[in-house]
């Protein structure tokens, strides 16, 4: 990894890790919402864990490309946004199915 005065690659990798930590909280909250409202529990737990695994893999991938081509994050950018969107959809799905 190339060194520059601002330690930009390190800061960027840390920003990705921080984001992954936030996703961890979201995955737990989404699963708990389905458990508390007692609806589509298995689906939500599977999707939450899958989304979390996808983000962990994405951060891993970005950390690897940072060493070779720091300016080319590639598809990890839209991938992370898609997972984020997915959790919003999961929340809406749980709320919608919890209505009598």
């Amino acid at each position: 990894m190339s060194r520059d005065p601002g330690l930009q690659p390190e800061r960027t990798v840390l920003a990705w890790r921080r984001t992954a930590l936030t996703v961890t909280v979201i995955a737990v909250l989404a699963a708990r919402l389905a458990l508390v409202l007692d609806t589509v529990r298995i689906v939500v737990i599977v999707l939450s864990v899958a989304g979390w695994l996808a983000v962990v893999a994405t951060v891993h991938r970005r950390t690897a490309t940072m060493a070779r081509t720091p300016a080319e994050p590639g598809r990890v950018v839209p991938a992370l946004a898609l997972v984020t969107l997915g959790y919003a959809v999961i929340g809406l799905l749980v709320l919608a199915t919890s209505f009598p």
Partner: protein
Amino acid sequence: MLHRLRQWFDPETVREVGTTPDYRFSLANERTFLAWIRTALALIAGGLAAGQFLPPLPARYAREGIAVVLLLLGAVVAVRAVSHYNRSERAMRLNEDLPASPFPALLATLIGLGTLILIVTLLVPLGSGG
């Protein structure tokens, strides 16, 4: 429209124009994108939390309403984060000004208004002796 969609999901199309800027600018753009994603995640966390930690409110479906609004806002912020990242990257490659956007002001206004509404709904029952 289709090209714009392709630009979103295939970042290579952004690299077809202009020249590659100093990689540190691209990394700063990437961190800004990540900060927006965390903003989206915070809004979504608020929606998920409202749905399970708020007690049923006096107004019917108020709890679900708060949750749905926060989740939708989070979804919009996440989608816009990608488009803003791509537009910024494109502007830097073409040596143009970074895209100006009314979105941050709009989001701040919405959150401010929502907070005001919540404060009023909390205080009104107190004033009427309820």
